[in-house]
């Protein structure tokens, strides 16, 4: 409150244009519009299976939600910390196997009880992520990427060869006895719930002191360390947290698919798909991975349904991948946001003299609202996504 008053006072002293909206009012309005937008999207997502009752469509919906949650979770570590892990399929597969093995051991036949195992799957994924992270996060950059790939292959090999996973014959999931017409809807809503949690996590991390510490690591890890960020702990926590939703959607996927095979539970294409989705939408943004998955996963499902050939799909997917990375290296969301920002700037250019001090006040107050920028952020251009805040810089 005091801060707002101070900013207000300073603004008034410099520019007495009283008919302009106060910066905090602008921000509140923008935040209201933003909340309304999120609520509308959520309503659309909830209504989707009622409008499109075709099982093929809702099945695509389930897969899309699973990947949206996974890409968001992946990004909440990779996008903010700058580390690029290509081993999140480990958590996906661990979650999937947890569900089918637990259901088998506990003699759960089917129905809703199986979904009670989903949090357990998430917990197992986190339990796997901690030693994984302890090893992998000792290294940086290229070595880190390669280590995550190697650990991924260790898990795939174990799934093929350990007794508990029953090798390449796979383990059947419990069979639900729901009517075919609305069969997919249960999976859809459970996946949606996980997605909401994952997105809330991602958003919360982005706005928090913890998130700023991650961004500081991304900009310059050594400097962050010297500024007092507990680098190892922050990285490991973010890594383990990112495994939670991935393990949970892995479990939902296993129940939905009906049979878990090592090569599909621990799929190298999963690693690369999740990364591509985040890159396409915008690495390090909250909405980017959601958008990326929303574009790519239906496309992938469509291809699988339309052309039975896996090979053709690989060619198209790889080519698309290359085009995205070469033409839109920063992703859709940051590119569009920059365009909009520069357009706004150009439009308000004629009244720049009057609004100059206002703009300064706006940035100041929005930084205050973010809290804790001083100290944690280091030299990076870090600012919470205000109404016209600067686009996030990637390091």
């Amino acid at each position, binding site marked *: 409150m005091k801060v707002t008053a101070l900013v207000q006072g300073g603004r008034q002293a410099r520019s007495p244009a009283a008919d302009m909206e106060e910066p905090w009012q602008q921000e509140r309005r923008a935040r209201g519009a933003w909340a309304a937008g999120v609520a509308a999207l959520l309503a659309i997502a909830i209504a989707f299976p009622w409008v499109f009752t075709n099982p093929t469509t809702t099945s695509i919906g389930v897969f899309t939600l699973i990947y949206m949650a996974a890409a968001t979770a992946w990004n909440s570590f990779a996008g903010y910390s700058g580390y690029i892990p290509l081993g999140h399929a480990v958590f996906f597969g661990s979650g999937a196997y947890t569900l089918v093995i637990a259901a088998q051991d506990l003699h759960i036949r089917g129905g809703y009880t199986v979904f009670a195992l989903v949090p357990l799957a998430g917990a197992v994924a986190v339990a796997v992520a901690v030693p994984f992270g302890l090893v992998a996060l000792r290294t940086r950059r290229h070595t880190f990427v390669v280590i995550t790939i190697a650990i991924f292959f260790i898990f795939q090999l174990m799934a093929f*060869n350990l007794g508990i996973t029953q090798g390449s014959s796979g383990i059947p999931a419990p069979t639900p006895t729901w009517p075919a017409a609305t069969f997919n809807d249960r999976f859809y809503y459970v996946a949606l719930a996980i997605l909401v949690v994952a997105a809330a996590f991602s958003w919360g991390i982005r706005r928090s002191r913890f998130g700023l510490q991650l961004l500081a690591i991304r900009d310059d890890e050594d400097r962050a360390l010297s500024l007092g960020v507990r680098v190892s702990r922050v990285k490991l926590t973010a890594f383990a947290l990112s495994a939670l939703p991935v393990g949970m959607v892995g479990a939902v996927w296993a129940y939905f698919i009906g049979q878990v095979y090592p090569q599909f539970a621990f799929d190298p294409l999963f690693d690369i798909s999740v990364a591509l989705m985040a890159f396409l939408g915008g690495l390090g943004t909250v909405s980017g991975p959601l958008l990326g998955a929303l574009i790519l996963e239906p496309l992938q499902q469509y291809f699988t349904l339309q052309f039975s050939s896996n090979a053709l799909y690989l060619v198209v997917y790889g080519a698309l991948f*290359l085009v995205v990375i070469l033409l839109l290296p920063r992703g859709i969301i940051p590119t569009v946001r920059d365009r909009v920002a520069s357009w706004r700037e150009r439009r308000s250019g004629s009244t720049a003299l009057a609004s100059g001090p206002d703009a300064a006040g706006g940035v100041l107050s929005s930084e205050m609202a973010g809290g804790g920028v001083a100290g944690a952020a280091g030299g990076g251009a870090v600012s919470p996504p205000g109404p016209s805040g600067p686009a996030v810089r990637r*390091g």
Partner: protein
Amino acid sequence: MGGAVAKAVVDGVLTGGVYALMAAGLTLIFGVMDIINIAQGILVVLGAYLSYVLSQDLGIGLFLGLLITIPSLFVIGVAVEWAFMRRLQERERTALSILVTYGVAIVIEGILELIFGPNYVQLRAWYVNQSFHVLGFYLPYIYVFGFALAVFLLGVLYLILYRSRFGRSVRASLQDRAAARLVGVNVERVSTITFGIGIAVTAAGGMVFGATNAFNANSGYDLISRLLTIVILGGLGSIGGALGAAVFMTVIEGLVAVLWSPVWATLVFYAALVLVLVIKPVGIFGQRAARAQ
């Protein structure tokens, strides 16, 4: 038992030489360009398929065919570098190079599967089928021939790198890109040619791999994870390290297969990487792996 152990060691050293050749290409590309080429594995498979087509359909011998496949892969390497690598922005190079080469790998894998289908094939020749008796076990000739080829090509690589003017500019770029540019090295051209050379070696590696293993389009994943393990253990950018690590790893893998079980031998391969990095994050043979940002 003694014979089996001796066989494991000899096998390991001989296959290690071939892996060393493929890994040398990978680590050379990294050293000069700061790029990890995830497509190296599938390019080995591509080399194997090229040899397959030449020997099967045109009746050209495997070793003679290398005169065609090595230049072909060199051209492919130069094309990939020209089309993708040089377009990467300096800032995002690390992450983007891995993703881009992964994309290239996926495209090549898809094309190979479209053409050749999912069935496993293996290269055929008399020296693949016939063996000779040594140290109490039988060894197919191809292991020795492949090792000789690898040693020969590594020798050529050595001569290029250490006895030629071009090699001197490669090594200068390897040490410091900016400084090399300052003293007049055309780093872009060096990068392109290095990328081509790094990929050309996969033609030879692929021929030997295809003669000693059954392969299909999916074999690239297994190969690249092995090659990455080798170059990380050897220290990224160090060719000597890659040679040592390749032989070390294949011998260990062979020994585990004999003394314990073949099922877990591959796992030991990766587990060794994890173990080594827990103890020494820069790799066994390397000092440069964790290069400053």
